[in-house]
């Protein structure tokens, strides 16, 4: 186990290095000169002298590698640069956004799991029953609905038709309901399909026959054995879904004007505020990598086999 974690940490260092490099390179696929973009974003007139001074200040006259490592040095100390628009540190802006994005993402994840886990398990246990068919139809539709479509439909039914809930999500519990549902429903579609498949796979394992032959109660078979053994896969599936959730939150936050990092990055894209975009991608990737590392380790804790079982 220690050896495994050590190996994964080594891998982590490499992946983070590559991620930082790619994020830095992202700036260089953008058309135009960064100094010019910065000055334009701040609404200053483009004067060749000012531009040259800005270029020097931003270190654009140095070679790529030097710039990368000086940027990386900043990143390691928590300095992601300043926004072109208001000159505030990117890290501060992202931290502010996170206080909105994290509750939204967690509530969406919680809702999705609260719906999908029982439905996925029930439809696997009562396979081919009426319940299973209904749950599967729900799952197929959830899978085929993009989150923005759900958001638009939810706004129509709850805000425009019935004005039960507010369209623009002010930072309140009520405001959180629609964005949460918009993110959770497509996630449910996928979770149910994957959880159901996982539980069915476990139910078909030979050891289940062994338990039944011994007269172990059905409840104990499902909760004690099937769930225990499939929890490793369920954790991995959930970890991977967080990546989708991060992308989805950009769309949903823009629709509901939820002031999280997703809306921040969309505003940054409109304003061509590249350090914010860069910081957003880097922070999301780092979080995602760390979550996946954690799920990998959890998987090993639950299922410590290496080459056992055919």
């Amino acid at each position, binding site marked *: 186990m220690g050896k495994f974690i050590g190996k994964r940490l080594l*891998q982590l260092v*490499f*992946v*983070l290095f*590559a*991620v930082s*490099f*790619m994020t830095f390179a*992202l*700036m260089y*696929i*953008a*058309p135009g000169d960064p100094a010019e973009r910065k000055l334009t974003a701040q609404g200053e007139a483009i004067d060749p002298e000012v531009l040259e001074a800005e270029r020097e200040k931003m270190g654009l006259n140095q070679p790529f590698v030097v710039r990368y490592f000086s940027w990386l040095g900043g990143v390691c100390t928590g300095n992601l640069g300043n926004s072109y628009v208001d000159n505030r540190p990117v890290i501060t802006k992202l931290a502010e956004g996170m206080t909105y994005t994290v509750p939204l993402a967690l509530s969406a994840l919680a809702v999705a799991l609260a719906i999908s886990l029982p439905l996925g398990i029930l439809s696997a246990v009562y*396979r*081919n029953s009426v319940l299973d068919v209904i749950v599967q139809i729900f799952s*197929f*539709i959830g*899978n*085929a*609905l*993009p*989150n*923005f*479509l759900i958001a*638009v*439909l939810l*706004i*129509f039914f709850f805000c*425009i038709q019935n004005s039960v809930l507010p369209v623009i999500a002010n930072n309140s519990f009520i405001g959180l309901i629609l964005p949460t549902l918009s993110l959770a429903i497509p996630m449910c579609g996928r979770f149910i399909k994957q959880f159901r498949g996982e539980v069915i796979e476990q139910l078909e394992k030979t050891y289940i026959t062994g338990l039944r032959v011994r007269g172990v109660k059905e409840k104990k078979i499902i909760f004690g054995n099937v769930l225990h053994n499939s929890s490793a896969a369920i954790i991995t599936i959930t970890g991977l879904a*967080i*990546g*989708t959730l*991060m*992308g*989805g939150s*950009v*769309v949903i936050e*823009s629709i509901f004007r939820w002031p999280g990092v997703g809306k921040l*990055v*969309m505003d*940054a*894209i409109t304003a061509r505020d*590249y350090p914010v*975009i*860069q910081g*957003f*991608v880097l922070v*999301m*990737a780092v979080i*995602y*990598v760390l979550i*996946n590392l954690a799920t990998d380790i959890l998987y090993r804790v639950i299922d410590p086999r290496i080459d056992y079982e055919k």
Partner: protein
Amino acid sequence: MKSFKRKTKAKKLSYKAVKIRLIIFSALVAALIVISIIAPIIEPNDPYATSSANMRQGPGGQFPFGTDSLGRCVFSRVLAGAFTSIFSSIFLVGVSFAAGTIIGMFCGYYGGIVDTVIMRITDALLAFPQMVLAIAVAGVLGGNLTNALIAIGITSWTLYARLARGQTYSMKNETFIAALKLSGVSNMRIMFRHILPNIFRPLIATACTQIGTTMIYISGLSFLGLGVIPPAAEWGSMINEARGYFQLTPWAVIGPSIAMLITILIFNFFGDAVRDMTEVRGNGR
């Protein structure tokens, strides 16, 4: 006389049922493709013609799905958008599949430093949440369909590359490949004539399951204004344009929404059927 009723458990996928499913959904996919190709012919109105006289008309008569706030025929625009949505998804999946498969096959077959480097690159790309990277890349490059496809394509090839690499790697050590090498068959020929046909099925099945997802990604970027630029018709951007007037012209949102839901459902079912087919075949049928 007592009865001996007992249900026998449903057996695993039956070949016949999967085959019927595959035929039905292949036919539906074909129908969608045909509709999107002949869209310019069957459109009842010009999808781009604005008209102040026909603004915000309800469904019926000349405009089956009504008109939007610029007086454009929603039905014609949904048809015109079908081509963009379906073909951009199929094109992107096709290119990622081809590129990923070839790269993965070379990596698996030759191994060595190139293999290590490419696999580490895929590791790094997989570290990014796909949609997050796509939004950032499309946002930096500037919104248009080509950039949206590039933004999604950056990560989508890795799926096929990893799969193809793994399959090729295990195939490489089989005796018949060794025999081919000994008899002086060139590496290219071994790869494309002998390995590729053997690893093709799981790869194509994966590709088919990805079409629906890709469609969701592309329309998501278009919805954000990072894909297809209005006035060009695309379902995601149509929904975005019309949502501001949802109360006035709900049909302008509902039309593309339903088209999108049905199309993605059909492609998802088709992908599942192809995947199940390879599984059933894989069981020695």
